[in-house]
């Protein structure tokens, strides 16, 4: 398959991630959709790496994976902390920063 197909898949996955982030209320699921977006980006990175034939895109994909792991770490830690304090685990309820 030509590279274009992979890029198309990547775009679809990314968009689905976006929809999910906007639509879901549970912060866990929001984080999952965030992961989706990152994965979509990863796929396109690797596809372009294949196109050029060097490893730059792959390295970046690895770094992205690392960052994703860290972010999941912290995000889940926060969710646990929120849950521990008996606050509703719902992005809509957590809105102290409102105008």
């Amino acid at each position, binding site marked *: 398959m030509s590279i274009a197909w992979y890029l198309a898949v990547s775009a679809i996955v990314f968009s689905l991630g976006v929809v999910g982030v906007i639509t879901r209320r549970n912060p866990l699921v929001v984080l999952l959709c965030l992961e989706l977006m990152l994965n979509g980006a990863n796929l396109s990175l690797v*596809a372009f790496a294949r196109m050029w034939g060097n490893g730059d895109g792959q390295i970046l994909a*690895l770094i992205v994976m690392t960052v994703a792991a860290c972010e999941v770490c912290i995000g889940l830690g926060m969710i646990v902390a929120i849950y521990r304090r008996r606050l*509703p685990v719902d992005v809509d309820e957590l809105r102290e920063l409102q105008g």
Partner: protein
Amino acid sequence: MSTILFFIAGFGTIAGAVGVVVLRDPFYSVLALVGHLISLAVLFLLLRAEFVAAAQVVVYAGAVMVLYVFVVAYVGGSGAGSPGDEPLGGVSGLGSSASNLRLGGAIAGGALLIELLIALLGTGLKAISGYGASYAPGPRTFGTPAYIGNLLLTRFLLAFEAASFLLLIAAVGAVVLAGRRGGLEDEEERKLTPLDLIRPQGTGTTAEGVGGQHR
């Protein structure tokens, strides 16, 4: 052959993604994501990025997702957060009821998708219509761990070190965040910090000022 594989993997990827977004129970969403990740690894393999595929499975699907499973099991979160179940609490100017945001999200995502597709496919770039650069299998060619390792330790050393540093910070941070502070309950008990000793009487955060120090 690769075409069929591509279509299977692609289908799996997209199905997993859809599942993450749509499924109500967060646990099912996690599982859907795991499936998505595996399919993605297959796609990576099709692109000859072996190491990345392996890392994907081991790190992402293996570690991160396990972490997710644990947290989902602890927090639960069933029932809350399904699109369209309960109306959202609170009033907002533009009425962000679930249906509104679903529509808004669909529009946003859809717009993004269409633009991306136009951008990617409509440009008529010759390069992406090809199969990529030439590939000759070997011990140090594109995609092998040796190749990646070589790159990591020469050209991308800074990124490598920074990423490891980031991982360290994240680990410490997670421990601090989720660690117990001397008791599960007891929100009335204020934890004394060195700042409290030097802070003048009557000052504090606004939240404490209005009596909501627990939030």
